[in-house]
């Protein structure tokens, strides 16, 4: 269904991300490409809608501002709802051997926040790199080679997109549990490193197998590259792999960036997988660590808990994504808009 609907999508046949990403899709999203109910609003209406949208923007942005100011307040002031703190307090770094009740975020006992940040960063980068490469490899195979059963296999991959993660989480866990018993102390392949439950491997190793949505997206992209380019490379003596490396990958860079960013975001957001696999708090990623801080310091959601620490931790979790978005905004928006046309 997907492939058929794709070409029927009312985009004038552009079909998803084309190699000229910046001009095609983004142009349409930004409204520079004509199309749509072309007429602009009259002046009066424009003024009205600007006021309305500004009001809605306040709703959209308010929690962030609230968060930043709450993270800079002392414990007693967190819930005073003032956007500019009356009393400032730096809640992030502090005395490495703190007085009990006066700890700072990065000096909490039993909460190695710095390692959590580092874990989230390297797992995110590694997972994104791996999934971009493996998905590109599979996507290239589907785009370039013509082999019997190709349509069926591709449909099978797309079908895995329909599988809810909640359904597969138990079997996947049981597989990792088996691996734990194989590679652990008493296991049959104990010479291998311990790669099962309570290690960080389950967080990124599955990415070696690619991911259905990324494969779909990259395949669309590769299909947009003229076949002549590849034929020319073949004549120049390229084998399939160097063709992939020298032609397909560089041309697909915009799509690869989208995949990369989406996967970093997915790993940065993920609470469930670390929650299932990680036991030692030193191995935690940032979301799981933040959840632990919330559980330890929250005290029922009233005002008596160490909410200034929690808000500081939340800010540390939110901020990197905002920075990433500020740099790669174009790719975020394009990626999302492309998702809409795979229907």
């Amino acid at each position, binding site marked *: 269904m997907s492939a058929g*609907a794709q070409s029927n999508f009312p985009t*004038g046949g552009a079909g998803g991300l084309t190699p000229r990403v910046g001009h095609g899709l983004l142009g349409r999203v930004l409204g520079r490409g004509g199309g749509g109910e072309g007429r602009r609003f009259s002046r009066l209406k424009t003024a009205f809608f600007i006021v309305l*949208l500004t009001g809605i923007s306040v709703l959209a942005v308010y929690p962030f501002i609230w968060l930043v100011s709450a993270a800079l307040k002392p414990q007693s002031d967190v819930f005073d709802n003032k956007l500019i703190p009356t009393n400032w307090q730096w809640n992030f770094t502090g005395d490495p051997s703190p007085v009990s009740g006066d700890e700072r975020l990065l000096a909490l006992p039993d909460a190695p926040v710095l390692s959590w940040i580092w874990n989230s960063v390297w797992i995110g980068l590694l997972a994104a790199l791996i999934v971009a490469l493996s998905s590109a490899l599979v996507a290239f195979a589907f785009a370039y080679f013509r082999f019997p059963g190709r349509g069926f296999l591709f449909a099978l991959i797309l079908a895995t997109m329909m599988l809810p993660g909640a359904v597969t989480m*138990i079997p996947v866990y049981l597989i990792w549990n088996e691996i734990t018993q194989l590679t652990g102390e008493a296991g049959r392949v104990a010479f291998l490193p311990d790669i099962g439950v309570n290690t960080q491997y389950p967080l990124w190793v599955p990415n070696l197998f690619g991911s259905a949505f990324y494969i779909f997206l990259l395949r669309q992209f590769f299909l947009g590259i003229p076949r002549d380019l590849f034929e020319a490379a073949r004549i120049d003596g390229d084998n399939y792999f160097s063709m992939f490396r020298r032609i397909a990958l560089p041309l697909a860079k915009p799509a690869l960036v989208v995949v990369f960013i989406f996967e970093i975001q997915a790993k940065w957001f993920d609470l469930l997988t670390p929650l299932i696999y990680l036991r030692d708090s030193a191995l935690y990623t940032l*979301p799981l660590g933040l959840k632990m801080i919330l559980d330890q310091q929250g005290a029922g959601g009233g005002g008596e808990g160490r909410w200034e620490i929690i808000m500081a931790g939340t800010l540390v979790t*939110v901020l990197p*994504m905002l920075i990433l978005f500020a740099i790669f905004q174009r790719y975020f928006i394009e990626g999302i808009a492309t998702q809409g046309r795979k229907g």
Partner: protein
Amino acid sequence: MVASLYFSFTDYGIEQIAGFEETSRVGLENYRQLLDDPKIALSLKNTFVYTILTVPAKMAVALGLAMILARLAFAAGFFRTVFYLPDITPPVAIGIFILVLFNGSTGVVNVALEFVGIPGPFWTTDPSWIKPSLAIMSIWTVGGTMVIYLAALKAVPAHLYEAAAIDGAGPWRRFFNITLPMISPALFFTFIVLTIAGLQTFTEVFTAYFGAGSAGVEAPDAALMNVIYLFRQAFEFFNMGFASAMAWLLFAIIMIVTAVQFVVSRRFVFYQGEKQ
């Protein structure tokens, strides 16, 4: 998948994981327990209520915003960026936002309500207000859906509107007879995706209400979503067999809901270039 189907017919649990006992087949026992466990029905009801509260509201808000942005002469890019910001907030942080912004006595939502003279409810502790607050917070993250609609709106050929205007069609007729049919594939896509995501809601709700050390506070029943209960059965109580049966029930529900959506939407979704 197949493994999960097999385990759903067994008593696989902590003893088997540790290797103390052989796995034994219990037939449909796990599925009978699904019917007996009142928390299954409760968690499913919660999940459905939450999904029904969020999906149409999100679609309506996103469409409204997208239609305004599509015709705005300037600052559209700026507003689009601003509305997308909530979508890049990690779900754990959204869970924490729910706790602090909807706090009954000090939360800013109630402060604002009081300002206009409405006494706000205790959102996070009153069972009947937990799901509405979760839904409102979910509507906050409407930016991605909006971007999809915006792209679809931009792809509608302008000549259709011009022709309609010449024929004397007013704004409402243009909306119902041109805009909606032309972007119906995007509407349909988000309808399906948002529904599937809603039925699998986990992180925000789990962060806000379910924790190892929530200082002895009992997690409220009103927030027990299906996947949360599934997670607890599987990884807190290690009833893998029972949890597998739950997973299959969820899968069946999602498949049925999606199939119904497909059948119903066949009448409404219009693909350009399709032979009628």
